């Protein structure tokens, strides 16, 4: 492996010397090798220079979901510029907010756009690339900022998360070691590479000297299978919705490819039980990974759910660079167990540097290099980490702390229940008590009394819902999280 592993671009340069003919990126236009990719990175860097981009400048780039996007990312790294990805079709309002906050030197978009800085379409930028690439081979220093990833914060406004080069390499290694990635890995990524999940999967393969295959989703489904027929894909990175599409539309064909998959990793949102079972039944021998992490502290835990079944809430064990702590409400480390849960916190090189231009916000989440989450959980005697709920969702029933998932898990296992969600309701005696909203399964008997009896066989008296409410559907966010605040509004006396 190349000796400079302080940045993704340095790793790519290394592979271009030691494995120049190995596949690097595949997209709708075919494949490029590491040798070709490196020459293109140098040309792209020369092109960026012509637009006045230098060390420390910000470059906003709309995702094109092809090699150009990754090459622009690597070219920015090579120049020491800061790459700021924008999702495809990003609204003008969001783009302008990011543009204004970063004071970007250059904006690259898919379509023509008006902007308050120098701007260009990606296609025009590529058309005008100089023949010769830059000749300098100075790689960025690891602890400088490589990119700013914008997510939508709780206020609805975008917030930028600063990620260093070293953090990107650490994130990549969390994945490489987490999935036991082989060097001849070829990973199909049908998820947007402007999003941290898809981007980090790409980095993992580039750091490992492996190949990424970029696609825009898994539909049309025939295109998906045609890519599998054309290239020796050995791994996939899927979202829960991509799994659902494959489950509903592949008509059993995915199982014909089962021998070829080393692993599938799933991310961006929580994978449902049905989708998990589908992958287990279809890709019987493949390793099936669910990663836990956030943009702020990525890829911290991993579990192969085809092999390990530790029960509700288990997110696996810590990845290579992640150290996981359980803390009390003051942030002090504590010894945790199933009966003594605390808040999960993460330290390690993969952590963000902070929220861009928001030191006060950073201080609420990141202290002494540790990212504090609002996830309530514990670590068992084998080192397996469990998440049982979010801090604000915990129900305090007379001092007994109950995670909604402790009630929902057993309820979901009942035949009569299609979906459910548990929230805290006010209670005169114990302060709070669990209230369970249920969606009955079609054709099942809607019988709250029977439900209460069956739940009584699975839950202790503290965790038994005080009230059960019938509802047509459980509200979920775009990434599948239960919108408990919406349900709390439905509680009597809350309208």
């Amino acid at each position, binding site marked *: 492996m190349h000796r400079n592993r302080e940045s993704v671009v340095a790793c790519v340069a290394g592979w271009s010397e030691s494995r120049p003919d190995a596949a690097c990126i595949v997209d709708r236009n075919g494949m490029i090798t590491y040798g070709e990719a490196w020459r293109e990175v140098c040309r792209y860097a020369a092109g960026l220079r012509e637009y006045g981009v230098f060390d420390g400048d910000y470059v906003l780039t709309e995702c094109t979901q092809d090699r150009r996007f990754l090459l622009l990312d690597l070219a920015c790294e090579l120049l020491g510029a800061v790459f700021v990805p924008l999702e495809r079709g990003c609204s003008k309002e969001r783009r302008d907010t990011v543009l204004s906050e970063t004071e970007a030197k250059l904006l690259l978009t898919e379509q023509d756009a008006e902007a308050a800085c120098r701007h260009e379409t990606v296609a025009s930028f590529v058309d005008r690339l100089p023949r010769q690439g830059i000749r300098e081979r100075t790689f960025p220093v690891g602890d400088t900022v490589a990119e700013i990833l914008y997510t939508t914060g709780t206020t609805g406004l975008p917030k930028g998360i600063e990620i260093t080069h070293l953090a990107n390499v650490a994130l990549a290694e969390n994945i490489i070691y987490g999935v036991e990635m082989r060097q001849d890995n070829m990973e199909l990524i049908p998820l947007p590479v402007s999003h941290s999940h898809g981007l980090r999967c790409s980095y993992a393969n580039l750091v490992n000297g492996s190949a990424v295959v970029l696609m825009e989703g898994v539909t*049309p489904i025939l295109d998906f299978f045609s890519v599998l027929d054309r290239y020796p894909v050995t791994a996939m990175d899927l979202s829960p919705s991509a799994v659902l*599409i494959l489950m509903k539309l*592949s008509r059993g064909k995915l199982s014909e490819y089962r021998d070829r998959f080393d692993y599938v990793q799933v991310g961006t949102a929580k994978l449902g039980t049905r989708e998990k079972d589908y992958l287990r039944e279809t890709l019987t021998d493949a390793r099936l990974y669910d990663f836990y992490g956030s943009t702020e502290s990525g890829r911290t835990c991993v579990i192969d759910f085809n092999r390990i079944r530790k029960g509700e809430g288990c997110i696996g064990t810590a990845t290579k660079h992640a150290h996981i702590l359980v803390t009390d409400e003051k942030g002090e480390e504590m010894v945790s167990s199933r009966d003594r849960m605390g808040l999960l916190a993460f330290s390690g090189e993969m952590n963000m540097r902070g929220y861009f231009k928001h030191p006060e916000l950073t201080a609420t989440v990141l202290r002494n290099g540790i990212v504090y989450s609002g996830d309530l959980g514990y670590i068992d005697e084998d080192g397996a980490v469990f998440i049982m709920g979010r801090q604000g969702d915990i129900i305090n029933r007379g001092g007994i702390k109950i995670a909604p998932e402790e009630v929902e898990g057993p309820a979901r296992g009942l035949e009569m229940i299609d979906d459910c969600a548990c929230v805290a309701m006010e209670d005169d005696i114990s302060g709070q008590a669990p209230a369970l909203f249920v969606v009955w399964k079609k054709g099942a008997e809607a019988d709250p009394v029977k439900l209460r009896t069956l739940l009584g066989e699975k839950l202790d008296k503290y965790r038994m819902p005080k009230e059960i409410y019938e509802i047509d559907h459980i509200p979920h966010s775009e990434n599948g999280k239960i919108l408990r605040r919406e349900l709390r509004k439905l509680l009597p006396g809350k309208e």
Partner: protein
Amino acid sequence: MKERVLQVLRDYKSAVDYEKETALISGGIIDSMEWVELIEKLEKAFQVTIPLEQLTAENFNSADAIVALMEELTKNA
């Protein structure tokens, strides 16, 4: 047949001019998850299973294309 297809389409997603639109899928008017749901609704309404090789964007880009597909599948059912 066309009226039934239009009814399924309108019941599923309103405010689209299905008589004129010719890029329902390739133009992103119906996204990938909606496409999956629409396929399920069409299969249920016409009591057919749409084979894998027919799940192309071209077969779903317009009401007329969907009508042609449904006619073919119901004829062979």
